[in-house]
Structure formats: C-alpha cells, structure tokens
C-alpha cells in the first residue's frame, strides 16, 4: 500500500517532496513518506535540506518594535478621526491610469470631432412627405468636374432592400447627371452658365417611389447616420454626404 502511494518514480518523488511538510495531517501518509524516504536518497537529501532551510529561516533575527510605535499609532488614529473621507472621484483622480485614460479619450474625441466637423449633418425627417429641416446653406462652391462621382454604398446588400429600390437620380440644374449606383457623374450640362462652379445646393436628388417621385436638394435629403449618396471632390478631398433616412419608410 505504501509503495503504491509513493512509488520510486519521479512523480512519486515529487509528491513526497510536496507533502513532506504537510505529512502530519495524515498518519498513513506520514508513514508512506517515511518509507519512501528510507528507500530514496534524493528525497532523503531533500528532506534534510528542507529541515535545514526551515531552521535557517526560523533563526532569522526578529526586529524590534520602535519605542514610539504606540505614540505614533495614537497620532495616526487621532488624525484619521479628523480627516474627511476621500471620495470615489478623488481616489480615481490619483490613479496613475486615470490621466492616461483622460488623454486618450481627449485624442479620440478630437479625431471624431474633426471627422464630423468635415461632414455637416442634415436634420432627420420623419418621412419625405413631411417638412424637411435643412442645415444652413453651405456657401462653399463645389465645382462639378468629370472626376466627381456619385457613390452608393459599396456593399448594397448591407442596406435595407427598400433603399436599393429608390434609384436615386442626381441632376445639376435641370439635367440629370447620374441615375444609378456607383456611376461616375457626367459633365453636367448647364446651359445658362456652363463654366461656373456649381454649389452643392444646385445638385438635386430625385427619389422615385411607385409612380410618384420627389425632388430635393442634395443638402436637404436627410439621413440618420450612414450616407446613401456621397459627392466627392477627389482633387480637393472635400466631400458632402446625403441620403435617405431608413426610418422614413416611404416604400
């Protein structure tokens, strides 16, 4: 039974060495360990070294309590009674990670703010038949060139089906310049002032639903968060986005 518990194998030796100190919990185990150690010189040496080590550690001189220990303790107790408890926010402010988190948040905030600043949002309309609030007119002119394109989301399958059926059409002045997804804008035919740069508000979007349709300035077509329609000026990097609110449910 004894040899079964702690055989003369590396595993048996490991178990003996781990349990040398705790053998007094169990008399049977203690006998088994003693029996193993009598046969195993490595465990015998380990046992002896453990005893010596413990003797060495126990023999470490104890330090003395300073004479003013009690007096200083009393002072600390008295001070603690007069101190106000530190609030959670005060504790938080002194955490080393707090400053770093604050700085990281500020940096992220600046980037996000800058991103949205470049894309003025239009207000969301409940539906296209209702009155639509528009953002203040953008005075920045957008010259429509052959480089400009109308972009409908690259992955149309991620959009609601209803929006795919809208077939937005874009026109400058009176002429349609694009009427389908991801199709480049053609050079607009502006008969009256063919060479002048046109503003964004001169680009209209026509939304067809059934037999009816509605035409709105691009800047007035509202959208919740993701643009359906985007006008990019590749040469300058300027862009404006507009789209149809999924919440409108006009189809």
């Amino acid at each position, binding site marked *: 039974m004894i040899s079964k518990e702690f055989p003369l194998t590396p595993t048996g030796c490991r178990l003996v060495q781990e*349990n040398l100190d705790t053998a007094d919990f169990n008399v049977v185990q203690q006998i088994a360990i003693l029996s193993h150690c009598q046969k195993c010189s490595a465990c015998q040496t380990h046992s002896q*070294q453990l005893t010596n*080590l413990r003797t*060495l550690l126990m023999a470490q001189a104890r330090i003395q309590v300073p004479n003013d220990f009690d007096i200083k303790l009393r002072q600390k107790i008295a001070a603690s009674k007069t101190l106000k408890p530190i609030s959670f926010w005060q504790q938080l402010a002194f955490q080393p990670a707090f400053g770093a988190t604050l700085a990281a948040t500020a940096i992220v905030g600046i980037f996000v703010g800058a991103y949205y600043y470049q894309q003025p949002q239009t207000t969301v309309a409940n539906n296209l038949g209702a009155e639509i609030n528009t953002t203040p007119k953008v005075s920045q002119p957008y010259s429509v060139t052959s480089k400009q394109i109308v972009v409908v989301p690259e992955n149309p399958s991620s959009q609601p089906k209803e929006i795919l059926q809208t077939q937005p059409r874009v026109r400058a002045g009176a002429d349609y310049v694009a009427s389908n997804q991801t199709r480049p804008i053609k050079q607009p035919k502006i008969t009256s002032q063919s060479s002048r740069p046109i503003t964004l508000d001169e680009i209209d979007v026509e939304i067809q639903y059934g037999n009816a349709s509605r035409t709105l300035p691009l800047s007035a077509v509202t959208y919740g968060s993701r643009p359906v329609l985007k006008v990019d000026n590749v040469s300058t990097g300027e862009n404006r986005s507009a789209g149809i609110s999924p919440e409108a449910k006009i189809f």
Partner: protein
Amino acid sequence: MSSLSYSAELELANGISSATDHELVMAVAQGDETAFQEIVHRYRNQIINFIYRMLNDYDRATDLSQETFLRIYTSASRYQATYSFSTYIYRIAANLAISELRQRKRRRWVSFLLPFRNHDDDGDQEMEFPDQAPLPDELMIDTERRKAVSAAIQSLPEKYRLTLVLRDVEGLSYEEIIEITSLSEGTVKSRINRGRNLLRDKLQKYI
C-alpha cells in the same frame, strides 16, 4: 479609570489580558481603548516582523504595521468572527504589504533616476542588528548568512514570498495561510514548495 482603586485596575488589566481576541475586538467596536491597546500589544511584534520580511524596509514596515492597527481600529465594528482574529489581522497586513510591493514595482519602472541612485541610501537595506555574538568571526558569518537569507527571500516572486514567509518565518499553519490568502490548499502547498526550492538553490551554501 483614575477613580478606580489599584486592585480594581489590576483586576481590569487581568481581565483584558485574559480576554480572547474576539472579545477584545468586540470591546474595541464599543470604543474600549484599553482593549485596542491590548490587541496592539499582542500582535505588534508579529505584524511588524511579517511586513518587514515582505518588504525588507524597517521604516515602511513600521508604517504599515501602524496602518494595519489603524484599520483594525476603524473597522472593528465590521469585524465578523467567521475566522480567527489572527488570520484577519494577517490578511490586512498581507494586503498592505503586497500593495506596497506593487507600488514599488511601478515606481521602479518609471524612475529615471534609479540607475544614478546611491545604493548606500537605499531604504531596502538589511537592518543592522545589535551585536550578540561573542566572536568577530562568528558575528561576521552570522551577519553574512542573515543578509544572504534576507536577500534570497526578497528575490522570491511576490506570490511565493507571501506564502513562504507566513509558513516558514512566521510559522503559521497551512489552514491559517489558506484563510489569509484565500487560496486553495493545493495552490498554497505548491507555492510554498516552489518558494522553498528557489530558496534552497540560492542558499545552497548555508544548508
């Protein structure tokens, strides 16, 4: 207190000294300063030595021992006698010591001046003990051994150091260590064993 006769004071003192830890904490919770004094008297040596072995810094060990007693004092009303008071006080001291070790680790990481520090001024120096050995040779060997043991303990990873100091320096039982550290029996055994093996390798010369 001053109105009591000498015999009454003696009786009160005897009563306090024979009270159990649990009774004393209950008395402290009710504002009994004498009971608190008795607790400090009973445990200050053990706690300061335990923290000193963890930190190897006498001044900080003194501070943290006082902090331990301060916490006992302020939270006496919340003490629950689910386990022994000695376990409770060691647990507070262990948490403070570990917290200090972690703070030191962080401070060491950010300290640019560390390479230029004068190690003679280092607070982590081993304490000098009063001469007790009769012969200079013995004294020298004893001092050297003491420093070696202390340095070996300090070199242990924090998790092994805690369990090993509690077991082999403070002489606590495994059950007490399990309660103080909230670890399983297997983990405690394993950590003590690994700590000892590391120490044995470092102190081969002395054992």
